[in-house]
């Protein structure tokens, strides 16, 4: 990855000094620290039209603008923009980079002020609740008391759920997508595979690779390849690639990338390492592994949501085997038991977990309808005033 976005990102930055530490679950007070964020749209006079969008594991705050590192279009253009479900003509959209990330919010690639070197593995372990706590400090800084909505998929969905549990009165509506209230054993296993791939790369150097002027590209690339398979589905891979060959008609009888699917995965791996920090990958996967809302509420998920007034819309996808529908159904049952106003839709698609980022009309229609009905209940006019 290119480290230029780490300490002095091209995004907006909220810096918190030594007098405003971020109190982490691991017991450490992180200070100073900063949060990099993008905003779209305009905050209304009553400050009631703000939507917080939480990003997934390997995404960042550049949801609806050209990415400063890759030069590619924003990460969630299907959802965010003028006339999109999260309509930037109507809502004020805040997209922060998570704590532990590598696009400007403080993380293991950031410079440790005590040493002048990158934090590396000296960076404290962060959790999903820590990310949300930092976002709440950002909102305080922006003078936004109540969010009209919190929206996110996958790890962003976990943050969305955590927001509704930790700050129920600050969240008018919540749209957790393709996520769960806890990380399953299978998902922890996949994350461990990715971390071991990174750490097995000799260039990882116990996390001190920046000081040696190298990066564990091979390890992180393998981690990305393995993870990317879990974001798709058997049907989607078959539809996209089948057993088709890459630029050849016959097998080469070698370990070259004969199949299109191999070539695709290699590309996914090599492009990922250009924009993502290997240590950040270790920290963020760990944060997801530790996530378990029920564990913080005596093992009873419904207790976490008791008495909530937040309006929820939970969405899952039929071919998502990373966060299958059963996980979303468990959220819905807990919300129902807590008396919450909840909608739940399972979207039929073969696009797997990644469906939430793609142009899936049925899903986008539901997101749009949910936000519009919530906006009417919040008393927001169609212009966002």
């Amino acid at each position: 990855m290119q480290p230029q976005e780490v300490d002095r990102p091209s995004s907006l930055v909220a810096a918190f000094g030594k007098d405003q530490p971020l109190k982490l679950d691991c017991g450490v007070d992180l200070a100073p620290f900063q949060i990099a964020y993008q905003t779209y749209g305009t905050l209304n006079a009553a400050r009631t039209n703000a939507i917080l969008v939480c990003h997934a594991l390997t995404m960042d705050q550049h949801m609806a603008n050209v990415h400063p590192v890759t030069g590619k279009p924003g990460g969630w253009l299907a959802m965010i923009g003028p006339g999109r479900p999260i309509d930037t003509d109507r809502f004020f959209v805040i997209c922060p980079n998570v704590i532990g990330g590598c696009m400007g919010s403080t993380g293991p690639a950031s410079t440790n002020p005590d040493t002048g070197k990158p934090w590396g593995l000296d960076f404290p372990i962060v959790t999903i609740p820590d990310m949300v706590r930092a976002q709440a400090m950002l909102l305080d800084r922006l003078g936004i008391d109540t969010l009209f909505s919190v929206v996110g998929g996958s790890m962003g969905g976990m943050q969305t759920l955590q927001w509704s549990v930790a700050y129920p009165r600050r969240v008018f509506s919540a749209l957790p997508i393709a996520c769960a209230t806890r990380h399953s054993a299978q998902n922890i296993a996949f994350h461990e595979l990715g971390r071991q791939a990174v750490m097995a790369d000799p260039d990882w150097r116990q996390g001190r690779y920046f000081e040696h002027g190298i990066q564990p590209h091979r390890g992180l690339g393998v981690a990305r390849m393995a993870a990317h398979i879990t974001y798709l589905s058997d049907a989607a891979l078959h539809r996209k690639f089948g057993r088709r060959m890459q630029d050849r008609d016959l097998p080469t009888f070698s370990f070259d990338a004969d199949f299109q699917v191999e070539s695709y995965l290699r590309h996914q791996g090599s492009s990922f390492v250009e924009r993502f920090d290997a240590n950040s990958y270790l920290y963020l996967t760990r944060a997801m592994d530790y996530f378990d809302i029920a564990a913080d509420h005596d093992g009873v998920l419904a207790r976490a949501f008791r008495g909530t007034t937040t309006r929820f819309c939970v969405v899952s996808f039929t071919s998502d085997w990373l966060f299958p529908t059963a996980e979303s159904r468990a959220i819905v049952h807990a919300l129902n038991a807590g008396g919450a106003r909840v909608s739940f839709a399972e979207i039929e698609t073969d696009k797997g977990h990644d469906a939430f980022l793609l142009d899936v009309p049925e899903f986008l229609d539901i997101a749009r309808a949910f936000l519009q009905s919530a906006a009417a209940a919040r008393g927001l006019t169609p212009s966002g005033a």
Partner: protein
Amino acid sequence: MTLSQPTLPLNGAAPFNPADHRGDHLLVAEMVAPGSRVLDVGCGDGDLLQLLERRGVDGRGIELSREGVNHCVAKGLAVVQGDADTDLDAYPDDAFDYVILSQTLQATRQPRAVLENLLRIGHRAIVSFPNFGFWKMRLQLLVGGHMPRTDNLPATWYDTPNIHFCTIKDFVQLCDEINVKMERAVALDLYGRPLRLNAPWWFWNLFGEQGVFLLSRRGKER
């Protein structure tokens, strides 16, 4: 009927017109006190829930079909995809003022368990179902010698989702068996109009095309 004046009209909603709504929906909506919390089990496209929300009811729904759920969410209704036979167990006791089962009882695998669940989750239950004792049904079986089909129940025996048909008489018997109190009972004719009130049960069972019942738990003060 107080329906001509909805208590909480939605912004920009079309003026209320009873002709836009099914007769049994109007009857059910009239049984629900404004401002109460309601769960509609098997809410379909959400027409009844929308009618109820216009009256200031805090409504939730469960619907089996994905298409139905997505229609409801698109209308801004709080509806979850689920199955009356399996998912009602997840709801806590006394969570709702009313639980509605509209034209769904006959499609459940365990009608008795579902009925008991309705009255566990809700203080009251409102159940409507097609009456298999309706004279046209009887006539088709007696004279035609085949499984009855009507405009409201057009499916053939081999592809119908309706697996537990009953008559009004059967339903009244089940309510007695599981100690359920019938607060109101109305039979509707083929056109969704209530039959005259002072008719005996046998008359309703023969001429009611469907039955609508307001139920509560016996022996509990509410």
